[in-house]
């Protein structure tokens, strides 16, 4: 019996028709054979045919049965065939990659860095800018902002009476809610008391945000009625961490500021109003509304609202602005020049964070582009070097698509491996990275590697693989078969198109590196200037700690004073302490605003209505190192019930006493026109109270001894030695004065201020890292491409040298090539940086986006790095041996 002809893939891709034909042929063959046999045995042809059909059985059914089955077989074979080919491609790719570990390592590292950085940064971008706020229908939530002549940018705090008036008169909102920050002392059943952040909120807050409590209930209107028993809603974290997550917590009592608060509910995890809060309590508007003539000038409520369905932001804004104009006319003392505005809640909550986040995202995007260029370059160089192998494959019958797929498989394999590692790195590294600067992100934006983030990471990795693999693969597959086969590997330096592509890739790399370096340079210069800016005080050797006098007994000012006097006295007498004082807020952390009227001066309407107001006591200025310019600091003459004593800064002296000596002058502070006069006892140096990047503005510092209504102070202790060693001392002093009170945030002033710079430092650090990586990639890319060109043109250089070219001219020839490509990229990159520079404006301090020095430094740096990267291959070109290269053929 003859062997059947064997084929590797017997029925590759048979059509339905083909299958039918084959089944028919097979059955026909059987019948014919049978007929022949029967005829041979003596039957008439007709009878034989009939007999054969008869003994066969159900022919039509069998035909249909076999066709159907074969179609199924075919489909299954096609699928497994495709899988087999994919497996072959991948196995081949794996073997190829393993043969060049250097390439694999470079490509993997590039991918891990690029995909890791992009995934990590995207998880932050998503948290801050993309993920919906954790409220119901967050798109219709808005925040109220009032701008005034002193704060043209607007402040998100308004006065209680204004809030009430907006609420009563507005027509475009379904409701207005407000919150006010405070701190409370919690006395647990056992253990030390703790100072907690809390928010007082209007009782409609949770309903307005459409967030239901996890346990119990939210607030009802009755909770803020006069005489209602005090209630609190707990945050998830406080409930879990401080109370152990007890399920029966609703209905229990917490001792807050010596008062028993009934817990009525627990909010879900991650619920926040954008500020740290362990718990929420009902806001008592009635108390403020009882004295509108005073409270209308006190701006401390954060207000937010929800647009009515069908009402646009512009319409609601116009409605509120009409009310605010009416209020300005009606209460010029408080509201002159104040204009209300509505901004989307997300915008208000994200605030200054949007710019750095976008910036870092942009930087990582550029890094990814750079990585793509680098990978494409590497792959291209390899594809060119392997052109002969590919040509042989083509000659043996591999289709173009199969060729492309083979090269693509290598890139994809690397992309999957590198991307996987990168994503893992991002997932593991992001919390660590954020942990470095805990203050960088507000609690509203929990950064988690959710499925979207992971999907983006995978997508980026695959896209990188496809882009960096497809471009060179298509180029290589287009290679002229015959030419490649005829040539020796040496001449396969790539056709004109490959050469041009590599030049473009080098230019792209250098250009992207230039953009990143300029950005990083500008940020670094800003940061350096910012940290060196004269703050007006000396932050070293100072320990700070927050303490709040809480409880009804401290409604007696004498007790407040006795407490703080005792604490500061004990500290001041310690030999290790230089000076001890206390303040409402630390420098750069802001102030509250007030207004100042100088006795005998007309109330100048052009003069800013707002002056910074900070209560201080004891030797505060000595403790943080602020000089006394004239007059005196507070002393024992400033008794609780004596004439009010205030210090002003130099900015206030210039603004309010342009022609006079301020010391000894009488002024009136605050909104109450019937308030008693105070006396300016001294002028102190200007301190940057509102932020590192905000120059000192007029400020007034009244003595806390005479203003004990403010309960929470930050102790500041200047020590001779290590300030942290004074911590037990501070704890003992507070404990001795009142063991029921809690200390919080015990840390050095440096540390306390540092967290203020956290976001900025974080962004800078990241961009610097990216710029460093970009520089390294650009250098490696330039070097790699040039080295490849040189090695493939060794013979040409040899011939040139043999024909009398000097080594110097060969060196210059190669150098000129590399530098020209890089130069084009550099110019384009610098131009791009100049165009994109204004994006940075919000983050720069005392540095213009088009800072000449930075641009020059970046250009110089890149040129020297490129030169070094070019010099090594160029030097190799000069060593081409003329004899050797002539003999090579």
């Amino acid at each position, binding site marked *: 019996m003859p062997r*059947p*002809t064997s084929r590797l893939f017997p029925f590759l891709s048979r059509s339905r028709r083909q299958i039918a034909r084959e089944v028919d042929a097979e059955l026909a063959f059987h019948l014919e054979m049978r007929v022949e046999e029967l005829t*041979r045995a003596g039957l008439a042809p007709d009878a034989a045919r009939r007999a054969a059909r*008869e003994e066969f059985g159900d*022919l039509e059914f069998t035909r249909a049965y076999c066709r159907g089955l074969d179609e199924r077989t075919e489909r299954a074979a096609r699928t497994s065939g495709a899988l087999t080919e994919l497996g072959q491609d991948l196995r081949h790719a794996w073997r190829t990659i393993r043969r060049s570990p250097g390439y694999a390592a470079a490509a993997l590292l590039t991918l891990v860095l690029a995909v890791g950085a992009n995934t990590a940064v995207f998880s932050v971008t998503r948290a801050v800018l993309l993920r919906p706020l954790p409220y119901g229908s967050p798109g219709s939530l808005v925040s109220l902002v009032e701008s005034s002549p002193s704060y043209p940018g607007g402040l998100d705090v308004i006065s209680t009476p204004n809030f009430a008036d907006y609420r009563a008169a507005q027509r475009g909102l379904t409701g207005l809610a407000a919150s006010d920050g405070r701190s409370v002392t919690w006395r647990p059943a056992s253990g030390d008391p703790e100072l907690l952040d809390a928010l007082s909120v209007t009782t409609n807050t949770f309903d307005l945000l459409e967030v239901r409590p996890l346990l119990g209930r939210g607030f009802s209107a009755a909770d803020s009625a006069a005489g209602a028993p005090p209630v609190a809603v707990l945050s998830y974290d406080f409930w879990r961490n401080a109370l152990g997550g007890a399920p029966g917590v609703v209905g229990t009592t917490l001792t807050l500021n010596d008062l028993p608060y009934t817990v009525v509910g627990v909010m879900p995890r991650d619920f926040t109003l954008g500020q740290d809060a362990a718990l929420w309590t009902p806001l008592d508007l009635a108390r403020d509304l009882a004295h509108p003539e005073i409270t209308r000038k006190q701006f401390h409520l954060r207000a937010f609202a929800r647009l009515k369905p069908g009402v646009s932001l512009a319409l609601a804004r116009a409605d509120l602005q009409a009310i605010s104009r009416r209020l300005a006319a009606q209460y010029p003392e408080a509201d002159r020049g104040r204009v209300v505005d509505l901004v989307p809640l997300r915008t208000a909550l994200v605030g200054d964070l949007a710019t750095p986040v976008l910036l870092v995202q942009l930087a990582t995007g550029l890094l990814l582009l750079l990585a793509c260029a680098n990978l494409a370059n590497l792959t291209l160089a390899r594809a060119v070097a392997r052109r002969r192998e590919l040509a042989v494959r083509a000659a043996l019958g591999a289709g173009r698509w199969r060729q492309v797929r083979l090269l693509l498989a290598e890139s994809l394999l690397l992309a999957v491996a590198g991307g996987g590692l990168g994503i893992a790195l991002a997932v593991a590294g992001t919390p660590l990275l954020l942990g470095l600067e805990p203050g960088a992100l507000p609690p509203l934006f929990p950064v988690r590697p959710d499925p979207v983030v992971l999907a983006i990471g995978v997508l980026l990795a695959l896209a990188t693989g496809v882009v960096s693999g497809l471009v060179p693969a298509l180029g290589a597959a287009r290679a002229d078969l015959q030419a490649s086969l005829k040539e020796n590997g040496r001449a396969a330096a790539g056709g004109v198109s490959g050469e041009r592509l590599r030049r473009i890739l080098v230019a792209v790399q250098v250009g992207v590196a230039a953009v990143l370096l300029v950005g990083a340079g500008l940020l670094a210069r800003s940061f350096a200037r910012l940290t060196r800016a004269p703050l007006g005080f000396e932050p070293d050797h100072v320990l700070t700690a927050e303490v709040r006098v809480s409880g009804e007994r401290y409604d007696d000012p004498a007790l407040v004073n006795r407490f703080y006097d005792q604490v500061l006295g004990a500290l001041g007498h310690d030999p290790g302490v230089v000076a001890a004082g206390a303040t409402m807020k630390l420098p750069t952390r802001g102030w509250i605003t007030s207004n100042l009227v100088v006795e005998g001066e007309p109330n100048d309407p052009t003069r800013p209505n707002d002056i910074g107001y900070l209560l201080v006591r004891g030797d505060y200025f000595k403790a943080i190192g602020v000089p006394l310019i004239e007059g005196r600091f507070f002393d024992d003459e400033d008794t609780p019930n004596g004439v009010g004593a205030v210090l002003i800064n130099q900015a206030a002296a210039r603004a309010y006493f342009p022609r006079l000596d301020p010391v000894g002058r009488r002024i009136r502070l605050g909104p109450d026109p019937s308030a008693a006069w105070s006396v300016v006892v001294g002028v102190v140096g200007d301190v940057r109270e509102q932020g590192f990047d905000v120059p000192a503005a007029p400020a007034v510092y009244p003595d806390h001894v005479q203003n004990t209504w403010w309960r929470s102070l930050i102790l500041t202790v200047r020590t001779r030695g290590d300030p942290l060693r004074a911590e037990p001392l501070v704890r003992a002093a507070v404990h001795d004065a009142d063991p029921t009170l809690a200390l919080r945030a015990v840390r050095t002033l440096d540390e306390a201020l540092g967290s203020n710079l956290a976001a900025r430092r974080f962004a800078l650090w990241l961009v610097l890292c990216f710029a460093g990586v970009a520089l390294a990639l650009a250098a490696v890319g330039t070097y790699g491409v040039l080295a490849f060109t040189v090695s493939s043109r060794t013979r040409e250089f040899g011939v040139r040298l043999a024909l009398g070219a000097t080594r110097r001219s060969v060196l210059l020839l190669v150098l000129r090539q590399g530098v020209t490509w890089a130069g084009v990229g550099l110019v384009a990159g610098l131009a791009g940086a100049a165009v994109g520079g204004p994006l940075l404006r919000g983050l720069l301090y005392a540095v213009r986006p088009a800072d000449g020095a930075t641009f020059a430094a970046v250009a110089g740096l890149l040129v020297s790095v490129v030169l070094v990267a070019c010099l090594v291959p160029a030097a190799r070109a000069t060593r081409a041996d003329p004899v050797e290269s002539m003999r090579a053929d």
Partner: protein
Amino acid sequence: MSGEPVDRTPPEMLQGTVDILILRALAWDSMHGYAISAWLDARSGGVLAVNGAALYQALHRLEHRRWIAASWGRSENNRKAKYYTLTPPGRARLRAESDAWRRYAAAVTSVLSPA
């Protein structure tokens, strides 16, 4: 295979039986369907004759299960014919089925034989 028309539909022939007979037929060499049918006829002395419908349905079923593979070749009389070959999984299947059959047959024989 004899030269007379025969009734080739033994009703007691189970589907599984046809399958194992085909696998056995292909154990030594590739064959086309008609040759398989002739081989079965000859080996069993006509007792285990399988009609064409059952044979080809079984062949395509076995091919779908990848126990046999098919390819086109030239027959003895130089005609295009579809040849079937036992695949490695088919060979394993044959071995397992044969053992089971032998045990089964021995059991039936011992039950039927006089005590």
